[in-house]
């Protein structure tokens, strides 16, 4: 046991005068069951309190700690050092705006996504506090939940070639979000309404189908199935649109 780990960490604090982007090396003794959460906190508390990174739940459920770990986007809290070589390179996620060191601004990106996909149930029904709930088949509920499991970590976006090339591309997380409402019978939007949102190159037709997103999703969401599902649906809607004109 007890390897000596070498961490190569990206450093840059835009708010600090004279700070320039560079890599910095730290050395740390490995302990049993060490995760990157434990390692990074020890580095900050024992070696460099200026180190900037994000953790929240530290249990793989909130999505705060995504970063590029030895070349691959993933959640730092659920990455065990024992699964990594002695030399570990940590970089911030690309695509998102950098806050400092390993921390990026996923919050603003995702909030804009909610607005552009109108990420809420669209219904004309009014809630009646005195009535019992509307019924729903359990299978449908489970299907919706399966698509709602996204923790907005941003891994899929940062692994996506299209998202890196064009910053108006919605990305797999957003398309998955739309799919969540498409399968929800409570949402009264039609295919044409969804087409308005995603039926273009920023949306479903910009995706090159290269699978980068699904490969890195820490929640194992079936992103490819959803992209295929929407592409077919939107393709049909597009054809209908052409004939209407």
């Amino acid at each position, binding site marked *: 046991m007890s390897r000596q780990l070498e961490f190569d960490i990206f450093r840059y604090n835009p708010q600090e005068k004279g700070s320039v982007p560079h890599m910095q090396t730290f050395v740390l003794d490995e302990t049993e069951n060490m995760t990157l959460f434990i390692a990074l906190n020890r580095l900050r508390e024992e070696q460099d309190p200026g180190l900037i990174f994000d953790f*929240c739940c530290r249990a793989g459920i909130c999505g705060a700690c995504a970063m590029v770990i030895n070349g691959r986007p993933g959640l730092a809290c659920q990455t065990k050092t024992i699964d990594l070589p002695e030399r570990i390179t940590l970089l911030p996620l690309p695509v998102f705006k950098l806050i400092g060191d390993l921390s990026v601004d996923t919050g603003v990106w995702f909030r804009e996504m909610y607005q552009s996909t109108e*990420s*809420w149930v669209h219904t004309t029904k009014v809630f009646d506090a005195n009535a019992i709930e509307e019924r729903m088949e359990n299978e449908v509920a489970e299907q919706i939940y399966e698509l709602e*499991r996204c923790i907005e970590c941003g891994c899929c976006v940062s692994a996506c070639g299209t998202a890196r090339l064009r910053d108006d591309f919605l990305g797999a997380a957003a398309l998955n979000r739309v799919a969540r409402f498409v399968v929800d019978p409570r949402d009264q939007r039609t295919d044409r309404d969804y087409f308005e949102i995603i039926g273009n190159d920023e949306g479903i037709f910009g995706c090159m189908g290269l699978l980068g997103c699904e490969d890195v999703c820490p929640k194992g969401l079936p992103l490819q199935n959803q992209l295929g599902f929407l592409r077919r649906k939107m393709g049909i809607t597009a054809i209908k649109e052409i004939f209407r004109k």
Partner: protein
Amino acid sequence: MQTYYSDLLVIGAGLAGERVAVEAAQDGFDVICLSIVPARRSHSSAAQGGMQAALGNCAKGEGDNVDVHFGDTVRGSDWGCDQEVARLFADAAPIEMRRLAHWGVPWNRVVPGKSFYFKGGEKFEKEEKEEKRGLITARSFGGTAKWRTCYTSDGTGHAVMCTMDNRCAELGINVFDRKEAISLIHDGDVCTGAVVRCLRTGELEVYLSKATAICTGGFGRIYKATTNAVICDGGGHIIAHDTGVVPIGNPEAIQFHPTGIVPTDILVTEGCRGDGGTLLDVNEERFMNIYEPEKAELASRDVVSRWMTHHMRQGKGVKSAYGEHLWLDIRHLGDKHISTKLREVDEICHHFLNVDPRKQLIPVRPTQHYTMAGVRTDKDGAVYGLKGLFSAGEAACWDMHGFNRLGGNSLAETVVAGGIIGRKISEFLQGYETDFKTSLVSDAVRKQQDRMEKLASGAKGKENVYKVREELQNALMDGCFVFRNDAGLKSCIDTLQGTLEKARKVGLVSSGAGANHEMAAALKIEGQVKLGLCIAKGALERTESRGSHNREDYTARNDKEWLNRTLAYWREGADMPELQYEDATPCYEIPPGDRGYGGGSIIEADKAGIEAKTIKK
């Protein structure tokens, strides 16, 4: 300096904060929510189990109603709760779950027909009725008479949090993330907003508002071992307490859970023991059956936590780089059971421990889990001491939990209390006018600016904030954990007095510029030590055992003297909290009695006094 105005400023965008915001926004008020992290990363999203509401739709929930739920909640609280509040809660919970369904929560639904379930490792059969098909179903949780816990698969908190945040987006509520409130703006009588540090730039900002709501969740992080997220660090409690006029209610009421994994203290579900898992010591021998022959591993959370701690004190703990622990053994449950019924536990073991629970033992220890303690409010959510200040959710001591909250009752509290208190805030805002005094605002900002400069320059000293925090965390683990006694509490207070001195002399090692974490930690360390002292002092004075507060030297629940709630104030310049007490509840629907679990004797209250406050139906 950036200044923002709103009718309502909600500090905290977890379920409670966003539910409050939605209610006020629906009434046409202008609302801003602040959060340290994007709202959906709030700790509410970590809750997997579910939320309680007496819908009575599923077979094992038949006959459930709001009265039964109310009774469970009062008993669960060990009669420490405000019964008026528990009543408001139980009555509104079913409506609130249906409202969530309307907004988009994919609740699991009743599936008619026969199915199996496990209890204590044994298999039973139940049959769901056709007429209930598609209604919201429920699962079983500890301490409840009926199956009452509504859920969505293994991600209830996540699903409800998504829906609530979507609702905020729909209503156009401004939810700003990476913003941390570091002090309230007030004149000793009225609260008019907060000074906030932007966690992107490190700059200070001002948020002025007619009403302010503290919904910042629990403060488990002042303990070394906790299931809470790293942002559950008491920021909201600290800024309220710091005013000197706002009390923390029942600081000694802290809940512990038996099975946090070591090292990271992530929770593994009670279901492990429910399904027949056992606890083993350093010799890989069972011990719960010695202490609790009847219930063994299945005794209540607090009881199991207590015996585990006791056993480790007897030298039977397993030593590790992260301190002592015990083992949880689910190997005998077999592959099929583990990969279906305990899938989430299997994943946690895999991701965080490199352990295959089919073949290996899981390292566990009792862990801080929930703070019943909180910013004391009345039943409308109005905080004691400052007009215009409200609080809801785990941050608040609204007090439906008393000295022990039931599983599934806190997630439900966030939305139920959020709804009720949001409406009360709306009523308050109706026609309310206030003055924003510029001198008050600039004083408040200057004070924080000054603190930050002193911390960065080390003008007050060079104590390392992380070392001071560790001292606090360890002192609480030693003296204010599962077991408490006179000697331990006194020595904890002694230690913490020294820690407080050090906290006041913290200086940064780094520059503190930008999104610097050391600065965030330093800004709240003194307040955290004060919270620790409130817990220790409250626990020392309370010479009885009630719910999670367990005194080895006073094992009985003493209703004669302690049927009350602690209020801990911290006056300006003081080195210790000032404790006051108020009656636990203004009235009784259920007079104090035996909980039916947890054991222990009761010193009865004066009968006539109880009688006089009992509601006759």
